[in-house]
């Protein structure tokens, strides 16, 4: 039994190391100077320097992109989480004709690749005057079918008695959502929040099509543009990547406790 546990831990340690090693490499590379980062395979910098960070922050509108990404991801995530929970509640606990059809109709859009809608969406944005505007990205990320699905599946497991009891006591629907539903599904909400934030923070295809001028670009686009702008300046790449991944890493670490529970739920209910 002891030997078996040891073997399992060993395999997992190898996996965990493989997961973390590139980040460790990146973290140290971001503190190296340019000549060193291209020539030496050493992990630790010989000379510690902040040059990479200094250059990335001063040269490519990086801070602007950081702000733009936050302006999309924070309100987008809040809307998706609240909207999905409310919709999930209605679709799980209300009885009305056509409910199943509606749910299936919404779900079916999950199968549609984004490339199917990208051209009409671009034309719609043109009609709305939202080309090259952050609002154009934000407005298209206000709903999440996955979110509605996840929240409906989760809320369905809540016994009806809880809701009925609140209704008999004269609670409003908004109060029930806020005081009964939210506390019972917070781990699913946290999962959805992390996944949505990540998705919007990381989104590349749609912003790269819609946002054209540097001032309006988001982090992933700026990051991608560093390939040619700073060819082989790997210390600057690493610094930029570090600044991009740290917010999400922090968010994930804070929410991890709920997160894994919630994610497991999505898999099992599939």
């Amino acid at each position, binding site marked *: 039994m002891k030997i078996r546990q040891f073997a399992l831990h060993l395999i*997992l340690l190898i996996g965990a190391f493989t997961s973390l090693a590139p980040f460790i490499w990146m973290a140290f590379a971001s503190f190296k100077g340019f000549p060193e980062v291209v020539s030496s395979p050493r992990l630790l910098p010989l000379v510690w320097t902040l040059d990479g960070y200094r250059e990335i922050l001063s040269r490519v509108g990086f801070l602007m992109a950081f702000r733009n990404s936050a302006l999309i991801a924070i309100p987008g995530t809040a809307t998706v989480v609240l909207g999905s929970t409310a919709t999930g509640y209605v679709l799980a606990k209300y009885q009305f004709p056509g409910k199943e059809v509606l749910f299936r109709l919404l779900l079916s*859009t999950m199968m549609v*690749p984004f490339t199917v809608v990208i051209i*009409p969406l671009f034309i719609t944005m043109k009609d709305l005057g939202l080309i090259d505007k952050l609002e154009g990205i934000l407005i298209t990320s206000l709903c999440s079918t996955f979110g509605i699905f996840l929240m409906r599946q989760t809320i369905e497991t809540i016994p009806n008695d809880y809701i009925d009891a609140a209704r008999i006591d004269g609670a409003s629907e908004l109060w029930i959502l806020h005081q009964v539903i939210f506390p019972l599904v917070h781990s699913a909400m946290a999962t959805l929040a992390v996944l949505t934030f990540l998705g919007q923070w*990381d989104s590349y295809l749609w912003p790269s*099509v819609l946002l054209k001028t540097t001032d309006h670009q988001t982090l992933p686009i700026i990051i991608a543009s560093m390939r040619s702008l700073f060819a082989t300046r790997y210390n600057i790449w690493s610094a930029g990547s570090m600044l991009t991944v740290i917010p999400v890493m922090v968010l994930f670490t804070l929410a991890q406790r709920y997160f894994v529970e919630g994610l497991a739920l999505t898999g099992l209910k599939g």
Partner: protein
Amino acid sequence: MIKILRRPQFRFGLVVLVPILAWYILFSFRPIVLSFRMAIVDYDLLDPISSPFVGLAHFKALLFTEYQLFWTAVINSFSYALYISLGVPLALVFAYCLANITRGRNKYQWALFLPVVVSMAAIALLFRFMMTANGILNCLLKAGGLPPSRWLAGPESALPSIALVSLWKGLGGNIVILAAGLLSIPMELYDAAKVDGANGWQTFWKITLPLLSHTLKLVIILATIGALQAYTSAIILTGGGPAGATYMISQFIVEEAFANLRFGLASSVAFVLFAVILLITLMQFRLMRTKWEY
């Protein structure tokens, strides 16, 4: 029993559903319909309403004319999806370990899941620099006595290299879902098997795998669908090169649409991709349907 909605519920339901539906109509249903129309008309940018109907002409053009690039993209996308699905057994190994350890599960989960949550753009940049000719990965190969790889620069190695990056990034998600599936299998079944004298291997094939099939199916479908739609990884790692070795379907669609302005062709390829995804999902559900349940 159908409960009739009382007034406050009716109002609340309306307030929630109407905006959601409006959003879906505007940003999902309508674009899907418009895209379908683009695929069957000769789309006129200046006067879209009177675009002439051409039926399946775009699809025929794809199949029978000289779109070499389209077939390159199709072959690359399928090879890539195949590479990615090879990661599922690996995820199962880790999930099995994760489900069977007695302590420290959360810490391993954190580490294994970290690559999943970070930006693909940043990861792609990181690997681009680790995969250079004298980069750290080649240094490691050399230290292990192996010949260096050309990684992203070699026409043979570029696509597997991108798949490796995506596998590294995506494995944790599959592991966590599979581990949860494993943990949900009732202990009594294992106890019963032990009483009947089954060995570990038999238990795995006769109890674990069948009971996990639902979760496994989901993981395989998600991995395949994701792989067929891959865009960011290849764009940032190689831009489709070298010599089209990593040119995939999504890149073909985006370039046809926004570089060559051939909306009709781009839309028809997108619908082909959609059809393939639907087909694969249905097939995998059918192939792996269990004939019995515990």
